[in-house]
């Protein structure tokens, strides 16, 4: 296990380095400079300011300099937010995005899993159809449409919850709900399909034959085995929600990180782009790693190579 983890960690570092390198060079092909008043700067003044930032150096030299700083964990100073450290920007925005994102996942799992189970157990009935409908709606209605509707109806028309801004826990409900619908839908769909398959397996028959009650069979045997695909999609879903919260953050005026991701690219904030990309990449790599480990814990049939029996 230890050897496996070490190996994975090495791969992770290599992956990060490759991503960073690609991003670095791709980013510099973006038209324009990171200067903000570019529109009003004569070419001479622009060059002078770029030189002040060391951006007049050949790219490979800038690359080496960037990586030297990166190795000691310095993501540099943002070009857009005068003087602000990129790490501070990430540290400011990410907790908010993570808050609404993880809350959305939690809601999604808590609602989606039972929904999928019920649909599978009551296959072909009205309950199943209703659950399927919810799933289809959830996949096809984009979170930002729902966000706009929730903000308007729940926030403005009915006045039940804040229509926007960030502050107390109340402010996080509607954004999380908007994001959770996709999770509910995905979860319900996967659980239903898996559950149907599992329920047809021999070991379920055996369990029933042993005289175990329906609930024990479902909870202990069927659900557990159905959870594997659910966990598989949980990773990508989590990433999807954490990186894709931009529009929802926009609609609810939430100080999250989604905005920073897009904004940094629009304004050529070189250090910002690098910082956010690396951070997200790291996050994705870690989530995938954790999911791989979880597999083994949930499904005894999947064991990591090299583990002593």
């Amino acid at each position, binding site marked *: 296990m230890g050897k496996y983890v070490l190996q994975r960690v090495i791969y992770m570092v290599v992956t990060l380095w490759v991503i960073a390198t690609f991003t670095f060079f791709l980013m510099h092909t973006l*038209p*324009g400079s990171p*200067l*903000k*008043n570019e*529109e*009003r*700067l*004569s*070419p*001479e*003044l622009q060059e*002078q*300011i770029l030189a*002040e930032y060391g951006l007049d150096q050949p790219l490979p030299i800038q690359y080496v300099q960037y990586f030297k700083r990166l190795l000691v964990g310095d993501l540099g*100073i943002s070009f*857009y*937010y*005068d*003087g*602000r450290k990129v790490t501070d920007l990430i540290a*400011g*925005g990410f*907790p*908010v995005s*993570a*808050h609404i994102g*993880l*809350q959305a*996942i*939690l809601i999604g*799992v808590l609602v989606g899993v039972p929904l999928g189970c019920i649909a599978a157990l009551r296959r072909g009935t009205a309950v199943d159809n209703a659950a399927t409908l919810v799933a289809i709606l959830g996949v096809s209605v984009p979170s930002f449409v729902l966000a*706009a509707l929730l*903000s*308007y109806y729940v926030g*403005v028309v009915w*006045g039940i919850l804040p*229509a*926007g*801004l*960030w*502050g*107390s*826990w109340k402010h996080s409900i509607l954004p999380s709900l908007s994001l959770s619908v996709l999770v509910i839908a995905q979860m319900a769909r996967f659980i239903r399909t898996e559950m149907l398959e599992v329920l047809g397996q021999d070991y379920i028959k055996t369990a029933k034959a042993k005289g175990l009650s329906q609930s024990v069979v479902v909870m202990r045997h069927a659900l*557990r085995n159905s*959870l594997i695909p659910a966990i598989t999609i*949980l990773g990508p879903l989590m990433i999807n929600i954490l990186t894709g919260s931009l529009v929802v953050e*926009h*609609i*609810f*005026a939430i*100080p*999250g990180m989604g*905005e920073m991701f897009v904004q940094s690219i*629009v*304004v*050529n904030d070189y250090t910002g782009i690098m910082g956010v990309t690396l951070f997200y990449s790291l996050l994705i790599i870690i989530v995938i790693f954790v999911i791989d480990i*979880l597999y083994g*814990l*949930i499904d005894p049939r999947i064991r990591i190579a090299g583990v002593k029996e």
Partner: protein
Amino acid sequence: MRKWPGMILSILLVGGLFLTACGSGVTEFDEQGAAKKQVLDWAITAEPPGLDSAITTDTVSFQLLNNVMEGLYRLDPDSKPEPAIAERVEISDDKKRYTFYLRDAQWSDGKPVTAHDFEYAWKRGLNPKTASEYAVILFPIKNGEKYNQQQVSADEVGVKAVEDKKLVVELEAPIPYFLYLMTFATYYPQRQDIVEKYGNEYALEPDKMVYNGPFVMTEWKHNQSVQLKKNSKYWDQQNVKLDVINFPIVKDTSAGVNLYNTDKLDFTWINEAKFAEKYKDDKEAVKVNEFTTFYLVFNTKKNKVLSNAKIRKALSLAVDRKAYTDIVLKNGSVPAAGLVPPGVLANEDQSFREVAKGELGFDPQEAKKLLNEGLNELSVEKMPTLELLIDDTSVAKTMGEFYKEQFRKNIGVDLKIKSVPFKQRLELEKNREYEISNSGWGADFNDPITFLELFISESPFNRAQWSNKEYDALIKKSQVNADFDERMQDLIKAEQLLMEEMPIAPIYHRTRLALMRTHVKDVAFHPFGADFTFKWASIDSK
């Protein structure tokens, strides 16, 4: 027996992160007792990128700085400069030497505001090491540009604090708008001890700077909100009525409207057409004028047909500007009658447009005639399809569609639209790799020259690559002419020349729409520089 280990682990994982995430900032925007306490909730559209006045170039930063800082002058409710930290000024006969006498004013930490604070800030802005992207606005100061280009030392820059309360400024040339510049952020004073104490951290947090304006910044939750409170050390604090101004950061127009409608905001922008349509006649809708002109730039050296003035004029005559402002935008923007926007002053009491008149008509018949004449002059048989370079914002795209339709319908010219991100448009314009571009310019101060000097031959902003000796001569003379009446006549002549030759076709001047509660009184809106001043603002009991 292991029961649900996976499930438990996932829940722990999710829950754990959830709990840590919960720890971050918790504030309620409450606004009770407004009758006793004057609290204003005002939406700003972005996190201010920086509040170091010598460096910042950003609109939102200017909006905040204008209310926590104060220059020698400040824009009054009519957007004219009124004495602020300066009590009075003496201007030499050649109009190149300004002697400012400062009043007794204090910084928020109780130290006096002195002439040295101005000298320090201006030289800091010009210092090439500061890499200020707005250093250019300090160039009217004698040797300012040379110092920025490292040709002279800081001592040779024409600003000197001769006494604590006396600042002498030498200019490169006599300019009528120098007092306007005194209201601009880059000209605010800065405290050397504070700037040096915090170094790279200066102005990054509310307690890492000092203030000399009507308000002080008490809270800055990044990307979330900014809070200002009345500055008890401000010299004119008895005229400041607001106690607190909350600036939640609301980037999305719909979000702003939702918050406004749930009483969380007293002010929000509504620039999108759908809101303009809905609220334009609302009693809470306010129009905010801007000294901004949007125009089509014809690259006279790229496509042969655009080198012909008649064809450029034909294209201009083919655009129904009024239809664009009234039917497409609906936000109170006005059709352009020339390059210089209405409201820009020609002298003390008349605007440039009042004096210069001018009109940019809509006349498809005349346009067709000119187009044919132009094509004949060039011996070109068929008008080629032209390419229009435009931003990739929804407003710009709508605009592109509008031009396309107008040209096709009115003079049978086909337009191909190339929609790119802003930075790319700028790059293409700079490299002159475009045929027609949809561009614009906003004024930093109240003088027509800020628009007109863009189009002299050697200007890097003359993206039309148009060159006219007479025009160049008129503008260059105006840049140094101490006879301001003659100067204005020259500028009027220059604009006429520009409109005859039409290297650019001005289309409209932008007006922005906002919603503001009727009980909010006396907020001063400015069409250039910082957008608003809260110094005199108050709230009628709700």
